[in-house]
């Protein structure tokens, strides 16, 4: 019996060793390995299709490949804090500023600040075409939101601490007590905190005849889908208010940032985390190049009849 256990243990050990050796990463330092820039971005940026549209141009012009991982804004920024990204591309000013002031941003040569804002669009308020709350007639976006709250009309919130969620929370009257923390936030029967991505929330709003704050790109891609209108019940009710401006920024990750061990929480000695600063520079410079700016400005015209993003001059 003891022999059996011992033998099995040894076999287990050998197996896990073999597994580990087999899983040894292909040494990324060899000169033949493709140069890679690791970009962490939010789902909404990735889902708009912009990055997939730019990728072949970028890779052809710079010789770099890009690896985009997308998650909610919180997770996308965390990915960089965990040392898994060379550059982040997000749209949540307050969270970006917190990231930079914590020392995680790096100023790329030739730019004034760590946070490189390069394009914007507007969030839009969408809702049932009949607009029972009368949001489209409101004086401003805040008044439109008040009308929804007063009439207790169904509103679908992302509820996932994303950039869109953060922007939405700023539009409600403070007295409602809505926050991004489900533990302390007030709850209302008409306010649905979905905890899902943009597309899922729009679909939900369409099904339930609710209102929803969305980035225009995702909304249009659902509206003008190749398979037909995915959101037949929804229309844009309010847009182009300054409070609804949605600015996208890139931040290069600082290799000397105060990284902490993700398990123990203790500060890591400098140089423990590998960040490719050259790759980040290449990416940020290219995104600000004339080619990229033209491409971004044109994105969406062919498919939706309007460009989805405006490049910042």
């Amino acid at each position, binding site marked *: 019996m003891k022999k059996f256990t011992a033998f099995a243990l040894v076999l287990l050990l050998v197996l896990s060793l073999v597994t580990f050796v087999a899983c040894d*990463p292909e040494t990324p330092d060899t000169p033949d390995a493709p140069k890679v820039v690791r970009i962490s971005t939010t*789902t909404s940026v990735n889902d708009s*299709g912009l990055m997939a549209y730019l990728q072949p141009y970028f890779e052809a012009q710079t010789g770099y490949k890009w690896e985009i*991982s997308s998650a909610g804004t919180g997770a996308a920024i965390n990915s960089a804090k965990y*040392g*898994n990204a060379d550059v982040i591309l997000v749209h949540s000013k307050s969270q970006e500023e917190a990231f930079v002031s914590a020392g995680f941003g790096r100023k790329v040569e030739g730019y004034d600040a760590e946070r490189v804002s390069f394009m914007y669009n507007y969030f839009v308020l969408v809702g049932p075409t009949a607009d029972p709350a009368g949001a489209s007639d409101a004086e401003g976006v805040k008044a439109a939101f008040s009308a929804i709250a007063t009439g207790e009309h169904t509103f679908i919130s992302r509820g996932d601490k994303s950039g869109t969620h953060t922007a939405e929370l700023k539009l409600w009257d403070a007295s409602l007590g809505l926050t991004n923390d489900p533990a302390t936030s007030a709850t209302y029967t008409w306010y649905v905190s979905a905890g899902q991505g943009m597309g899922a929330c*729009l679909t939900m709003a369409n099904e339930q005849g609710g209102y929803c704050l969305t980035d225009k790109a995702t909304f249009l891609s659902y509206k003008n889908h190749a*398979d037909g209108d995915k959101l037949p019940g929804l229309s844009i009710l309010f847009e182009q208010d300054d409070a609804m401006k949605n600015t996208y920024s890139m931040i290069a990750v600082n290799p000397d940032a105060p990284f902490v061990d993700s*398990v123990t929480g203790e500060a890591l000695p400098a140089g423990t985390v590998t960040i490719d600063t050259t790759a980040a520079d290449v990416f940020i410079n290219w995104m600000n190049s004339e080619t990229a700016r033209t491409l971004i400005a044109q994105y969406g015209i062919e498919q939706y009849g309007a460009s989805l993003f405006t490049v910042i001059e």
Partner: protein
Amino acid sequence: MNAFEKAWVLVTSQDPMLQNIVKTTLEMAFSSSAIALLLGVLIGLVVAYNDFPGKKIVVVIMRTLMGLPPVVVGIVVYILFSGTGPFGHLKLIYSVDLMIIAQVVLITPIVAGMTETSLSPLVDRMRPTLKGLNLSLPKKTALVLFEGKYQLIAVYLFAFARAISEVGAIQIVGGNILNKTRTMTTAIALNYNTGDFSLAVALGIILLAIALGVNLVAGLLQIGLKKRND
């Protein structure tokens, strides 16, 4: 175009992106289910064959771990293998290898628990004979595995099904990177987010077809073994 037509067009068009996704999916699912099978069967067998103090507790722990939530496994593996984690120097984050590791963590307890449960009655019947014959350990192991082959095929099929359909853990540790770590399930989740429902369903149909193929092979194997037995 309905989802079935779309699936057919996707399969026949030899779309390089789809081929890459399928290749990644299969590489991951076959590797993780095979490694989990090796480790899990060994653990399950050791627990089933031996009597030791605390065996009942070990069995309870094993069965509890069968219900490990994929997302939790994903987050823990992500933390451990991040650049700032203890295994960060391996540079495995956002790679297929790490997805395999996460799935092995997820599936090994399932294989171990199922092996223990399904082989225990058999092992109990074999134990006196095996001990009385003074067989070497590899021989004993081989004989038990051979007697339990039908159960083990079923266990493997379950492990494979779990591996190929899992999305929570691999989404987190793999990052769903195009042409690198995007699998059928993470692509399906992405297409749902971008509103391409029919593409998501089409991918789902292809995934089911692959699972069906693996099950057919296993079924034929079982029939073949049964025939040889008679």
